[in-house]
């Protein structure tokens, strides 16, 4: 979803940040369009949170610029920027009631008492917390605190809302529910959301576009489908989804081509009808069977010399059935276009990556 003619809500140019000898962010260029739901995905230590903190103004970059709505804010303090943050630990003021927390930003901006109250109640309603305004944050559940943090940030109507691992502290059920709610809330308020997560599923389900971070750089930016179906590097293929790579001799034997290829586990058919037109066939032996409720994952050692994970829906099978398959020979098949070529990282990148490793 490119920005189009409009000015991007957030633009980062050549952003770098070093802590001592460690380069946490090693040159990030990024444009986030107005109204976009944007995810920054990566393993811990990949620099995504540092980038978020530089957008908010909590860290100042070692080099590069941060533009918000076209304005250079690189050297401005957090209180001078039209962005707000939902913190990972929510950072609710413990000595204030929920309503006072939500009103804090308005009070700082000298909004009148009646107006303040009205807008705070409205914000609490939008996150479905009406009636809890007089409680202290300590008397709320994790999910409720998260909503208060959201209301507190949204009530001052920032241009951009930054969310640092917003769902990280919630349990699975609540997380799934909040994913849906956050998405709906964003559509409703129309504010640009930039959120940091290490959970690839969360990034794929919620965002319009995803930036995958690796070692302080962006490895790939694209829609969830692009990032998942056409990973730009072996790292992206492995981090977003299961890494199923065919290289070297295995790629030559099976696909008749040189290079590195990724096949997603759910694209592979196990012991089905023989490979037809436009399909690639392979044989192998089941090395491991992992039963996971709705699906079963088979780890298959190919006769051609690679190892692939195959995910099968448990349409008719149960855990007892699949366990017996361990060690048996199987036939695999997938549509040829689903073996996606994965470009190897450009050599200079790899060089600097290694030097970054050496520093740690």
């Amino acid at each position, binding site marked *: 979803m490119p920005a189009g003619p409009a000015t991007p809500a957030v633009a980062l140019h050549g952003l770098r940040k070093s802590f001592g000898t460690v380069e946490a962010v090693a040159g990030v260029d990024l444009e986030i369009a107005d109204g976009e739901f944007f995810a920054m995905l990566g393993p811990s230590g990949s620099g995504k949170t540092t980038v978020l903190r530089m957008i908010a*103004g909590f860290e100042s970059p070692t080099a590069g610029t941060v533009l918000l709505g076209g304005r250079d804010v690189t050297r401005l303090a957090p*209180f001078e920027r039209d962005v707000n943050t939902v*913190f990972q630990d929510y*950072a609710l003021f413990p000595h204030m009631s929920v309503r006072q927390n939500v009103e804090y930003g308005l009070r*700082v901006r000298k909004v009148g008492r009646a107006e303040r109250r009205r807008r705070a109640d409205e914000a609490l309603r939008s996150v479905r917390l009406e009636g809890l305004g007089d409680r202290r944050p300590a008397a709320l559940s994790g999910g409720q605190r998260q909503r208060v943090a959201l209301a*507190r940030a949204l009530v001052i109507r920032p241009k951009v809302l930054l969310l640092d691992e917003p769902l990280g502290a919630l349990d699975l059920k609540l997380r799934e529910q909040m994913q849906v709610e956050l998405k709906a809330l964003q559509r409703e308020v129309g504010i640009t959301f930039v959120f940091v997560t290490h959970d690839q599923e969360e990034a794929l389900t919620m965002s319009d576009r995803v930036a995958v971070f690796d070692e302080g750089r962006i490895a790939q930016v694209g829609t969830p489908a692009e990032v998942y179906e056409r990973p730009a590097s072996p790292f992206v293929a492995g981090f977003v989804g299961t890494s199923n790579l065919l290289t070297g001799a295995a790629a030559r034997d099976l696909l008749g081509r040189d290079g590195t290829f990724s096949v997603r586990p759910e694209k592979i058919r196990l012991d089905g009808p023989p490979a037809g037109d436009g399909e690639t066939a392979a044989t192998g032996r089941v090395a491991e069977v992992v039963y996971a409720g709705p699906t079963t994952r088979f780890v298959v050692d190919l006769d051609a010399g690679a190892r692939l994970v195959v995910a099968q829906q448990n349409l008719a099978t149960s855990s007892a059935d699949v366990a017996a398959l361990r060690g048996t020979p199987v036939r695999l098949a997938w549509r040829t276009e689903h073996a996606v070529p994965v470009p190897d990282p450009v050599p200079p990148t790899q060089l600097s990556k290694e030097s970054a490793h050496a520093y740690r």
Partner: protein
Amino acid sequence: MTSTLQRSAGGASAVRGPVRRLSAWLHRHAGVRLAALLTAPLLWLVVAYLGSLAVLLVSALWTVNGFTGAVVHQPTLDNFRTILSDEVYRAVTLRSVGVAAAVTAIDALIALPMAFYMAKVARPRYRRWLVVAILTPLWASYLVKAYAWRVLLANGGPVDWLLGGPGNGPGYGLTATVLVLAYLWLPYMILPIYAGLERLPDSLLEASGDLGARAGRTLRAVVLPVIVPSVIAGSIFTFSLSLGDYITVQIVGGKTQLIGNLVYANIGAANNLPFAAALATIPVLIMVIYLVAVRRSGALEEL
């Protein structure tokens, strides 16, 4: 079920030797364990600590025969009547409370920025050294420090010289007493505030700035309210230590008298132990009132 488990546990431990058997036995007898753990400290608390307080209160009700100097073991409220009616004791009490309050206020004012720097500004690896630096003065003898200040404050001494010549400094007296006590008890104020600030997540400060507040507002609206209990915890130390002090005031206080001096004089020169005990109940009473007042603030959980 339980007995089976115990029997099997006992059987197993018999093989492993007497120490293990004792441990296993204690594991099953929680009451004995607790008694073994707490008997000694409880004895200390009840006999040595509460006991001595009780003796103090009881002896405050006795009097001394003015002629022989012998203690008369007859309960009477005469001592307290004297304290309440005599102008001198009221003045000394007020002065002592004033000194303790001034010392507490000065320490709080100095400790807040210092603790804030230590907990939030200084790099983590320097923090440890700053804490050590705060604690180091406590290793030196109280007397040495008080006499060092006597030298500093002497007529024509370094403090006078710094302020432009002999007689310009505070000299010995009430001001010097407050100054030296504030110096002596400062670590006891810094450390609780430092601990309180260290527990204050950085994200709270960032959130306040993020929501539009400048540093001053963040300090006023977020930092101070959150660390009030820590300041009160520190004030309990500085206030009670100042209230009971009588050595500093002897060394740098000139003619100034505090409650402690009166107690000391009655124990020594006046040889009136019961009256000294009665006087000593004043700071105890003030501290009890103070503790009850601050209990509501939650400060006692900070200690």
